[in-house]
């Protein structure tokens, strides 16, 4: 059923790179010890764990002790937000959480829960119509009662990049910890935590050709966190649970490759992505690019089509052999437009018709041409259905 299909949804997930899989395989059955055990088996596993930690630290330009392994990007976001908010309240009574209105749900719903059940005050930093934070709007919002600020590095739905380094500078001047969700960004952008001026940074391996089910949180030395998952005291007490060594090893290798091959991967994809955006905007009427035209993920193109039901469009594209997304993977087909698109000021009539096309290392020019040949007709059909 998948033989003749074209995958254009690399922001949803990526296949595991063969080189990554190679590195993982010995850790399932041969080197299987529990890294917390005293004996030789445990020591072998711990060696693999700590070597992976060093590798991740190198990719993020930080100390190995600043890396916490988690089960995914969402868990990293949760630990960062919950952990920092609760710790800061204990430390200095700060009671306010500040996030952008275009965060991934792992951040926005966590912040909303902290507001609903833990008495935090939740406020949003305004974004411009491309979904980017404006520094002059941020600075006055950084009041002393702010516990934590969270701003997404590269948005999953619209691809827009935020000026994290500048935001970090502003937060640091006020002594407020900054978290950034870099789950999408880590695949194509530098994630040097020193340059980015962040205190907390989330990544998830499956977005950059690593396995699903493993992620990491960078926690700058001196940043206090209250753990969410308590137990055996692993990860410096910040995240209990037996280490998933094969996956952690896989993530470390995948992140190393992503950063080492960052420039070449970007140079391969950018012309294809630009051709995609250019031709769609030229050839399809009543169509807008969402997100920033330039400051965006190099593999990411996202649009809204007026008078189109995005869910129906995805289905029709799938039937035609193209796997895309409306912005975030939503299987139940919610009829509600995305909060992110509404935050950009789009009307419901436009926001319902969203389409995200994300390229990857496997994408070929022929696939993009085929897609561009078919899309206008499919949009016409989808518009007929909507009316």
């Amino acid at each position, binding site marked *: *059923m998948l033989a003749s299909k074209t995958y254009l949804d690399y922001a949803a997930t990526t296949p595991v790179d063969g080189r990554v899989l190679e590195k993982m395989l010995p850790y399932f059955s041969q080197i299987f010890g529990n890294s917390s055990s005293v004996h030789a088996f445990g020591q072998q596993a711990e060696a693999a764990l700590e070597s992976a930690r060093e590798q991740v630290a190198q990719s993020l330009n930080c100390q190995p002790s600043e890396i916490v392994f988690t089960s995914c990007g969402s868990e990293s976001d949760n630990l960062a937000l919950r952990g920092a908010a609760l710790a800061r309240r204990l430390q200095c009574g700060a009671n306010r959480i500040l996030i952008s209105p275009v965060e991934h749900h792992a951040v926005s719903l966590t912040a909303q829960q902290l507001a609903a059940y833990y008495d935090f005050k939740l406020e949003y930093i305004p974004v411009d119509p491309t979904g980017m934070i404006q520094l002059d709007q941020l600075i006055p919002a950084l009041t002393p009662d702010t516990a934590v600020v969270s701003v997404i590095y590269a948005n999953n739905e619209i691809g827009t990049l935020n000026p994290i380094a500048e935001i970090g500078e502003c937060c640091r001047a006020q002594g407020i910890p900054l978290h950034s969700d870099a789950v999408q960004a880590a695949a194509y952008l530098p994630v040097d935590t020193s340059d980015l001026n962040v205190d907390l940074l989330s990544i998830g391996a499956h977005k950059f050709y690593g396995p699903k089910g493993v992620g990491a949180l960078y926690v700058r030395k001196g940043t206090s966190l209250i753990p969410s998952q308590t137990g055996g005291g692993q990860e410096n007490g910040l995240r209990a649970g037996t280490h998933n060594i094969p996956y952690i090893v896989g993530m470390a290798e995948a992140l190393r490759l992503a950063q080492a091959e960052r420039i070449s991967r970007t140079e391969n994809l950018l012309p294809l992505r630009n051709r995609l955006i250019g031709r769609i905007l030229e050839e399809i009427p009543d169509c807008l690019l969402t997100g920033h035209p330039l400051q965006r993920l190099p593999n990411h193109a996202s649009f809204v089509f007026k008078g189109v039901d995005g*869910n*129906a469009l995805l*289905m*029709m594209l*799938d*039937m035609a052999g193209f796997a895309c997304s409306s912005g975030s993977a939503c*299987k*139940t*087909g*919610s*009829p509600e437009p995305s909060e992110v698109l509404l935050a950009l000021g789009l009307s419901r009539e436009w926001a319902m018709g969203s389409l995200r096309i994300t390229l990857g290392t496997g994408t070929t020019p022929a696939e993009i041409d085929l897609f561009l040949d078919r899309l206008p007709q499919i949009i016409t*059909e989808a518009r*007929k*259905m909507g009316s």
Partner: protein
Amino acid sequence: MVAPGHVIVAMSGGVDSSVAAALLVQQGYQVTGMMLRLWNEPGTEANNRCCTPDAMAMARRVSARLDIPFYVIDAREIFRQTVVEAFIQGYEQLITPNPCLVCNQHIRWGFLYQRARTIGADYLATGHYARSRRDENGTWQLLRALDSTKDQSYVLHGLDQEQLAHTLFPLGDYPKPKVRELARQFNLPVAERPESQDLCFLGKDDYRQFLTRHASQVQLPGPVLNSNGEKIGEHAGLAFYTIGQRKGIRVASPTPLYVLEKDSARNALIVGPLEKLGANELIASSVHWVSGKVPASSFDATIKIRYRSQDAAGVVTPLPDQKVQVQFENPLRDITPGQAAVFYNDQVCLGGGIIEPKRGLL
């Protein structure tokens, strides 16, 4: 081999639609599964009778087993606007509406059928027990299912020629036990759910509780009158009663009392003994003819006045304004305004209309 066509199967995760899909795959069709996500009251998703998260997961598993694509189509808003609104309005107008008819017309053979055709599918298929065929003149006919105990042609009588030409009923020739056996043979992971005749969006509730929440104006108490016009009790609101109903009248009487009529002008519930209940004629409106042609004159037919009622013999006379008069051979006791009267010539479903309220029983 050239596929005999692309067919969209309306799936529910239950035995019938799953076996329908499996049969079509076996017959060589290019099959795509679709499941409608229908409306339910906020917070009662898990109680919906057909599109719970569990049912969706089941339909996905069936599709994976059959190696066919599967999509969930959101129809919540249009379902609320058409089916639920008509249901509430029907009760407000003191009739007993049949939402399954509205759903088949507006949702299955409206919204979903339109989608199926727009994306280029040749057919829509469902797990209904009914059959269709073309007669010698090329006219499409809707027929009762071979298994008369499962026949669902009653709720399908609104289909037209164009829809029938593009609709498949793979189960029409099978008795239900055989369908269950086929599910096992196809190794389908379908749930053996108890069958229900209740309405999907009511969840665990009785329709009266639903009306109380969504149409509070129907809770208008008034007098219960006997057939002489004497007040013998109080009712809670006319919408809560159905013609022929015996339980729940709450009036002491030596002989059982039945609801005979709902008099909206006086907000009165008219009750009386069983022998007063029967009627030997009805008027139906918004009549639809499957053939697309209004019969030129009166004709003998068998008639069903509810989904589960027995066949009744009678004469159907076309009237102007899409109406018919039906004269029954023997009086029937449960002629209910708002339900459909559906006409058959033996196995062939000719069409049907909505039973009109009677005027002036007293």
